[in-house]
């Protein structure tokens, strides 16, 4: 039983879940004082000089100039030619953080964006602060630090400008990489940098940040800082790593999770063309670190992929997964009562409302499958383990595609006894992640291979390995029940999730949380769960929990609105109640005023209520998650053969001020197309513990021709900005299903839609 207010499944603490991240950062932010700011800033009386200062040259009476560059603080480096290098401390996986965070620094600094070069920082949390990414919180949690870094550098340039121009600092402003005076006098940052870096570091509490009306970088559209590298094939992905004398590796694991290795035909494998060596490797019992396997290294990826196909491995699967989706579905359907075993949330007198003959009771049963992350860049890692010579400590260099470098440091310490000082970590750009690259098993596998060969090894998982060894989005079933009074108002809400647990603990993403709408606004509601033990690996998948709970709850609200014969928009707004922030100051808590605003605007933009042609329909959904309020309206048509066309999706999001408008629109468009692709065709099944889908031919993905028009709007409220990597995805599936009902009268309660006879 879990009476935690938010109904957080216990195993969520394994992952950097939403709540954990926020708690941790809050704790830390309370302790950021001058000292820790300086530590984070790397600032001690003028920064780390990477330059030689040449005294007494041209710019002003006694202005020194310099050759090279200086660090103004931990994040900002300025060179003599005026190039401003801003570090991005967080990993980039397509969410655009490498562009948006530096935009905040540049804004406060008064930099010209054209002078800015962004570099991925090394992994060093003492210097750069939080360096993992997830939960769409990276922007929110780094916003103040980025402003501090920019404003701190700006103040030092203003001080330098005052000295160089012999003018009062308070009359100076910084913009376009210049310090200027209303009289027209100015000095460029390049001219001032040799003085600027010697100026005292301002106390963080003395810094004054720009008002929104003063922004000229924040809120504009900037192309991703790596755009040019990406389009020329120089993207810097982990899988592109090449180092001298590198071997290529694969790692074959048990076909069902948890199998123990008995034997393999290593001698045959070693004779295959291009194969250098092969090993049986015993794991440490933790699937997120190192599982039993066979490692093969060779002269090319192809050589080891081919050798892997020739492997004849004996596994002891007595303790391995024997999961069956069919069995799970049968079990779930058999226990589809509205009330389950474990209470997540309980408020008011639900039973009386359901028993009242005057009330109309509606119930429905929903189903959603396991799905794969399907990052297009397969899992990979390059590692070079270097044993220490003559008593020196071992070192390990790792080219690491990960959302969570600090977590790897913990694993390296635990599994290999390597301290942070013994690690040389390169944070690599990721070809998609969506929550996938949060575990470290592919990293440990690469290290194991390197330890055995004595040289660098690039481990690459084939697409087939990447699919079957995923940490999937968990599937599940939900029974919902609602009571409508004679006025057509919802007076009771009940929800029962039949989900998945492992070793008695609910897996990440399974079920729902009691802190979510509509539980938080209902006077009488009950949320329960019944968890079935499954061993298939699960992990966070773009908007975990929310991506399935939005489908069931927002579809069911539409069902209730229809049963009440009421307009969906007005019905939904009534359920939200009067405008209020339920727990003021807590970004995890819904603000019903902001919710109503996005719903009203999306209805307006999409032309809600207009006459639709035959076979066409509009569907609405709203969801609050990851601190974002998002409403979407889908416009579909369905023909007699159930061919579905998603013509257009209108989306309105309130995530506070937008940092990079281009990136923000792109995230919403992408989340909508991802959500559509997933709901239409994607389903992972398992039998006998074996994942049945092996590659893209068995796991359909949406192509360009099926992509809808997406019309994106933002309500740029004054709340602190939050991220957009995830929250635009959850409303899409219910919006489409509600639109299908509007078009056809058919209610879709089961995903994916191709199994319900639909096609695109």
């Amino acid at each position, binding site marked *: 039983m879990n009476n935690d207010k938010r109904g957080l499944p216990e195993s969520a603490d394994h992952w950097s879940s939403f709540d954990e991240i926020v708690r941790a950062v809050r704790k830390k932010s309370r302790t950021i004082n001058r000292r820790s700011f300086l530590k984070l800033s790397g600032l001690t009386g003028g920064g780390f000089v990477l330059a030689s200062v040449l005294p007494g040259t041209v710019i002003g009476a006694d202005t020194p100039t310099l050759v090279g560059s200086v660090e103004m603080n931990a994040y900002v480096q300025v060179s003599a030619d005026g190039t401003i290098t801003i570090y991005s401390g967080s990993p980039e*996986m*397509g*969410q*655009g953080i490498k562009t948006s965070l530096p935009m905040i620094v540049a804004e406060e600094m008064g930099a010209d964006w054209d002078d800015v070069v962004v570099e991925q920082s090394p992994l060093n949390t003492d210097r750069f602060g939080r360096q993992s990414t997830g939960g769409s919180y990276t922007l929110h949690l780094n916003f103040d630090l980025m402003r501090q870094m920019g404003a701190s550098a700006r103040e030092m340039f203003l001080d330098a400008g005052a000295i160089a121009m012999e003018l009062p600092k308070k009359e100076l402003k910084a913009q376009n990489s210049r310090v200027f005076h209303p009289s027209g006098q100015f000095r460029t940052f390049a001219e001032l940098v040799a003085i600027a870096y010697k100026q005292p570091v301002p106390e963080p509490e003395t810094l004054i940040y720009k008002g929104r009306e003063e922004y000229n970088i924040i809120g504009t*559209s*900037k*192309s*991703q800082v*790596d*755009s*040019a590298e*990406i*389009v*020329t*094939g*120089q*993207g810097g*992905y982990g*899988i*592109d790593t*090449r180092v001298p004398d590198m071997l*290529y590796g694969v790692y074959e694991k048990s076909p069902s999770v948890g199998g123990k290795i008995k034997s393999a035909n290593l001698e045959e494998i070693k004779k295959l*063309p*291009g194969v250098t060596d092969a090993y049986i490797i015993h794991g440490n019992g933790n699937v997120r670190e190192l599982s039993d396997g066979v490692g093969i290294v060779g*002269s*090319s*990826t*192809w*050589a080891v*992929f*081919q050798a892997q196909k020739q492997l004849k491995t004996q596994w002891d699967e007595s303790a391995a997964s024997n999961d069956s989706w069919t069995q799970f579905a049968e079990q779930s359907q058999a226990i589809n009562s509205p009330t389950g075993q474990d209470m997540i949330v309980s408020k008011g007198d639900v039973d009386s409302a359901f028993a009242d003959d005057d009330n109309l009771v509606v119930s429905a049963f929903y189903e959603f499958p396991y799905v794969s992350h399907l*990052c*297009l*860049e*397969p899992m990979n890692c390059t590692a070079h383990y270097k044993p220490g010579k003559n008593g020196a400590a071992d070192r390990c260099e790792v080219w690491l595609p990960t959302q969570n470098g600090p977590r790897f440091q913990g694993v390296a310490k635990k599994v290999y006894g390597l301290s942070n000082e013994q690690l040389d970590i390169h944070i690599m*750009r990721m*070809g*998609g*992640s969506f929550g996938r690259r949060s575990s470290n098993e592919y990293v440990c596998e690469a290290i194991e291979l390197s330890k055995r060969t004595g040289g660098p090894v690039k481990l*690459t998982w*084939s*697409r087939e390995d990447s699919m079957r060894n995923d940490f999937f989005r968990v599937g599940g079933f939900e029974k919902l029940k609602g009571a409508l009074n004679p006025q057509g108002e919802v007076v009771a809400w009940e929800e029962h999730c039949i989900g998945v647990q492992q070793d008695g603990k609910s897996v990440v993403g399974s079920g729902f949380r009691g802190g979510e709408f509509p539980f938080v606004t209902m006077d009488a509601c009950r949320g329960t769960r019944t968890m079935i033990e499954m061993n298939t690996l699960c992990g966070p998948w773009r908007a975990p929990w929310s991506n399935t709970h939005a489908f069931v709850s927002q579809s069911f609200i539409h069902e209730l609105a229809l049963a009440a014969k009421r307009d969906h928009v007005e019905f939904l707004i009534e359920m939200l109640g009067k405008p209020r922030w339920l727990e003021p100051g807590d970004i995890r808590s819904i603000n019903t005023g902001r919710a109503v605003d996005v719903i009203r605007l999306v209805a307006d933009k999409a032309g809600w209520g207009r006459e639709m042609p035959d076979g066409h329909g509009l569907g609405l959904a709203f969801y609050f998650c990851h601190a974002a309020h998002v409403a979407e309206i889908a416009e579909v048509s369905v023909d007699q053969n159930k061919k579905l066309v998603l013509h257009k999706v209108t989306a309105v999001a309130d995530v506070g001020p937008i940092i990079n408008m*281009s990136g923000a629109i*792109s*995230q919403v*468009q*992408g*989340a909508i*197309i*991802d959500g559509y*692709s997933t709901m239409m065709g994607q389903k992972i099944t398992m039998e006998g513990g074996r994942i049945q889908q092996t*590659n*893209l*031919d068995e796991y359909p993905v949406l*192509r*360009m*021709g099926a*992509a809808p*028009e*997406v019309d994106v709007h933002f309500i740029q409220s004054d709340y602190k900005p939050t991220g957009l990597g995830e929250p635009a995805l959850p409303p899409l599936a219910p919006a489409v299903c509600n639109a299908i009902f509007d078009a056809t009268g058919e209610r879709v309660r089961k995903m994916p839609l191709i199994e319900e006879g639909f096609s695109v």
Partner: protein
Amino acid sequence: MPRYQLKVNSEQHEVEIQSDMPLLWALRDVIGLTGTKYGCGIGQCGACTVHINGIPVRSCSVTAADVAGQDIKTIEGLSDGSAFHPLQQAWIDEDVAQCGYCQVGQIMSAAALLDSNSDPSDDDIDRAMAGNYCRCGTYIRIRKAIHTAASFYEASVQPMVEKQS
């Protein structure tokens, strides 16, 4: 292992490889051109698209041996080195990429399209790009960037190619 002569981006490379090695791995692991990406290995995702004699081909599904001596063009050879190819410029201007991993393959498919049809319609684009998957869902901007690049084509000194469709 047998040796083959591969002509990649107008340069000759002699490679000593397994006869069954797909062109993709010869490019990436042997020649060292890692711009061409591995996605699925079965010709479904299009991340590995290159041109063979101007035709877009999934390099995971053709052996290097089979295309020895033919004109192979990869992303590294798409522009002449002095400026971005119009498609690359359009991709930057339209801020197409999210994770970016599929985009090289998308651009190679789009380049083959524009070489044969300098003013494609949305339908032409959807058809030509159907073999390329984008996990991040950047299709809307890909389509827009192809139109933008097509307008660069028209404005540039590049010879107009007869529209075939």
